């Protein structure tokens, strides 16, 4: 465990706020400018930053993040370049904020699991989220990550049965990422009515913070959910804002979401 993620959640809690986990795609529109986007997320109040690493076949992502991945790949983004050129610079500018890599398992496999874990930790990455790696397939990788001090954050879905959800929560590293809707990433006007119940259940079982993600884009949604979760993840809305209007727009949206997370 890096411990860094726990501290970030604790700091938000001490301020009487839910944590904001903010996602952007490394390399969108190019590597240096994505550093500015990540920096803007932190300036806007993000407590944890998810650094997306593009994959050509992103089966868990909706059109906004898929589009960002295509732009990033065109701009030459690779896991190696993200670890060499993006992560160190974001760490230099925002040393307090834990960074979590979000990508697909094939990208990590191609890089080499151990090589990734070691280099990621050296460069200051606190954790990783791999949305196509369910618990059944993650034991070896998690052991490798544990040894290096990188938290492999598990996901829990609306379709996950109760006992399975509790097992995932009990065994979690970093935080538990509760997927709010059955579907891909992307903004939703409405979130399912039973979401708060599911969050309560997972939270009761988890020794680490629990966040809700997928479909969340407004301060109002963040406010509603923060009664049942330690934080929220916002991705597509931030990616879209940064793509349309640049880092300042992403910063402003983070600040607005943080207002929604004040308790």
């Amino acid at each position, binding site marked *: 465990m890096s411990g860094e993620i726990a501290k970030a959640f604790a700091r938000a809690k001490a301020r009487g706020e839910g944590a904001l986990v903010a996602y952007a795609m490394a390399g969108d529109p190019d590597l240096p400018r994505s550093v500015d986007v990540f920096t803007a997320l932190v300036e806007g109040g993000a407590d944890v930053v998810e650094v997306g690493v593009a994959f050509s076949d992103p089966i868990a992502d909706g059109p906004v993040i898929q589009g960002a991945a295509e732009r990033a790949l065109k701009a030459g983004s690779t896991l190696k370049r993200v670890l060499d050129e993006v992560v160190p610079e974001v760490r230099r500018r925002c040393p307090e904020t834990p960074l979590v890599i979000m990508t697909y398992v094939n990208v990590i496999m191609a890089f080499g699991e151990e090589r990734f874990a070691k280099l990621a930790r050296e460069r200051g990455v606190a954790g990783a989220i791999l949305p196509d790696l369910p618990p059944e397939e993650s034991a070896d990788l998690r052991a490798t990550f544990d040894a290096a001090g990188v938290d492999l954050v598990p996901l829990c879905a609306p*379709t996950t049965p109760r006992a399975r959800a509790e097992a995932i929560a009990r065994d979690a590293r970093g935080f538990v990422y509760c997927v709010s809707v059955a579907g891909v990433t992307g903004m939703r006007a409405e979130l399912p009515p039973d979401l708060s119940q599911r969050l309560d259940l997972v939270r009761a079982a988890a020794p680490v913070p629990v966040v809700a993600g997928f479909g969340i884009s407004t301060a109002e949604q963040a406010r509603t959910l923060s009664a049942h979760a330690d934080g929220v993840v916002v991705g597509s809305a931030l990616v879209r804002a940064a793509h349309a209007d640049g880092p300042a727009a992403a910063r402003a949206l983070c600040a607005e979401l943080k207002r929604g997370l004040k308790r």
Partner: protein
Amino acid sequence: MSTQTATGRFGRFGGRYVPETLVPALLELEEAYSAARADPTFDAEVARVLREFVGRPTTLTPARRLTEAWGGAQVWLKREDLAHTGAHKINNTVGQVLLARRMGKKRIIAETGAGQHGVATATACALFGLPCEVFMGALDVERQALNVFRMRALGAVVRPVESGSRTLKDAMNEAMRSWVSQVSDTHYVIGSAAGPHPYPTVVRDFQSIIGKELRAQAMAAFGRLPDAIVACVGGGSNAIGVLHPFIGDAGVRLIGVEAGGHGLDSGQHGASLTLGTEGVLHGSRSLVLQDADGQIQEAHSISAGLDYPGVGPELAHLAKTGRMEVRTATDDEALAAFYEVARMEGILPALETSHAFARGRELARELGAGKHLVINCSGRGDKDVATISARGVPPAVGVKA
């Protein structure tokens, strides 16, 4: 003989690399499939539909003129092109749609490359009265207009996919994304022996009817098992279907032929078994065409059905362990084989199948006289006539210019 372990692995390959949202659906499918296989009424119903509707068993046809021309082994054709809808794909879709109905699913989705699996899924859905949506790369929609029409005529909704290379792999991504969004009432009929566990097993089992029939037909026709069986390999459903029942028969050579495209050196091919590396695509660990950073590369083949950068995990295992021999055929070789088979045997083979035929001559000679070579005729070429005719007017035979 099975090469499979309990966890859906074939050696190092296979597994279930999907979003957590889908895992419960895959567990449900695995359980429902086990229960169905244990229920004799299910097998009986599948067998009845295959007999009454699909037209099974398909014949084992001696290819007399090819045998003579190639000057080696006796050549036999396992005629999946004679199955209803014109390819082996229907064996699997009938089985999976019956399974979906048994599971109470209300909606069927599928992906398709050449369109044969889409047509077969639309056909099974029409037969059993279930709504059907088929995801198809926009490029494939253009080059397979006939099959697009057939799917629509059968009542299916065809959804062109504009992302990525606009071919089969992108259609499969989109079908998976759609499935994640409506997993509770939807069954995803995967057409290749690929995807997350239990799909490679389910598809292989439904397609194994090809090899099971062949065993009996070979015994009846020439009194022993074939000396070699050859099949084309894209995702690999016809190949695993015809080859699987013979894995334990050491005397039977199993041969897969991949798309060599413009040539293995050109970088434009679909040869995942030959040049792929270990990776995860569409939910299973297998051999995939990818760059050093793990980005999936676009495959190329003149045949839309072989234009896929991955391959089923069981075939990857059979290739890595040496049980299956792997060869390739280029676009041009496949085209030449198409005309050769058309003129020598009166059969227009699918471009996919033409890849298997393209290696036929050398295999027949390697085996030699007195041996028996079976080519799995996975589908018929009607769907490909536009693609083929676009390459020029076929040369006339026996007419001097």
